[in-house]
């Protein structure tokens, strides 16, 4: 196993962890964190593809690397917009939750976010 494959497997697990937090955590900011974890994992998989494409005297294929750089910047702008939406939601409604008011009842199998 080369180090590239090792980091690729690490990226696969990161994708799973980020997706899990995105799906299950009810707080919107945690969902955004999960989205960023997921993004990091995806970029890692792309980077592994770039590393394996080492040829022509370079240590990595430059095209996937440029894609990842673009992806990091775009992921940041998506995070910024999502965060602005969450802040506005908190200002307007006074709470931070993606469920509507009526479905929040304190019973044992609670509503999911």
């Amino acid at each position, binding site marked *: 196993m080369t180090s590239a*494959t090792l980091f690729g497997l690490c990226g*696969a697990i990161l994708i799973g962890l980020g997706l899990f937090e995105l799906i299950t*955590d009810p707080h919107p*900011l945690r969902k955004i964190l*999960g989205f960023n974890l997921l993004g990091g994992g995806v970029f890692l998989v792309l980077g*592994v593809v770039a590393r394996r494409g080492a040829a022509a005297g370079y240590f990595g294929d430059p095209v996937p690397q440029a894609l990842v750089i673009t992806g990091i910047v775009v992921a940041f702008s998506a995070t910024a917009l999502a965060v602005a939406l969450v802040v506005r939601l908190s200002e307007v409604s006074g709470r931070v939750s993606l469920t509507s008011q009526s479905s*929040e009842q304190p019973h044992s199998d609670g509503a999911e976010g």
Partner: protein
Amino acid sequence: MTVAFIVDVGLAILILFVAGWIVAVRSTFAAVIGFVVYGLLLSLVWVRLWAIDIALTEAAIGSGVTGALLLRTLSRISTVDTAQSANKSFRLIAGLFCAFISLAIALVIIALPEPAPTLAPEASAGLPAVGVGNPVTAVLLAYRAFDTFLEKVVLVLALVGCWSLAADRDWGGTPVLWRYSDPDGVLKFLAQTLPPIGVLVAIYMLWTGADNPGGAFQASAMLAAMWMLSIVAGLTRMPRTNDDRLRLTLVSGASAFLLLGFAGFGIAGSFLAYPPDYAKALIVAVEIPMTIAVAATLVMLVAGPPQRGGVS
């Protein structure tokens, strides 16, 4: 099993531990700090994967600016979960689903074709015509310059979306970054000492990005950090969102690209084409407004929608 591989295994275990901690920890503040740590560890992984440009970008934008954004958000919302946490069976099903997806991607990683397909020979074959030495810069600004142009537009669009979330009475006003009282003047001292060095490093990264790892995005993240430091320390004022100079700066990046693109019709034959002799000069010429525009956009994105002083 070389020493480097053992270090890689340790790094991978550390990253997975931090990521698991982010998912599991109860306090959102701790999760955000963990995310900053995660970004920095990820940039170490990029160095191990011989992707130095990505390492710089991840440390600067992925961990630094995103961390600042998330910390600013924490101070504005309540982090108490007001919704019920998802019930056990839903979490179990979601966990199985995510594990299945991870397994599928892991199998793909293991089954990647050998020898790996690569575009490195084509990329390096075109470098003499472009005139730069760093192939990633060549891809970003010559081969796939259209994607970089669209990325500028995406940044401005996200900013417009952010600004449109302001209350109607606040439109055109000033966003608030942080209010901090600095009785000892320590932050002010830092903000007076660091920005000259930071701007110098940013210019160096931009200039050397043509031949060595570096480039426009990393330089713009550094400029954004220096500007944010000056604003938080109180040395500069946050500009109003209807300030003409600010708006001109924000669109100058995409506009320079557009200008270059249409000029390409005349001087080289098609949209965004470079003439062989002047390619590097044109690339540097378009990188400068691009860096300043992206830096301004990053700061305004972290600052968020305008909060006060709107035009009535």
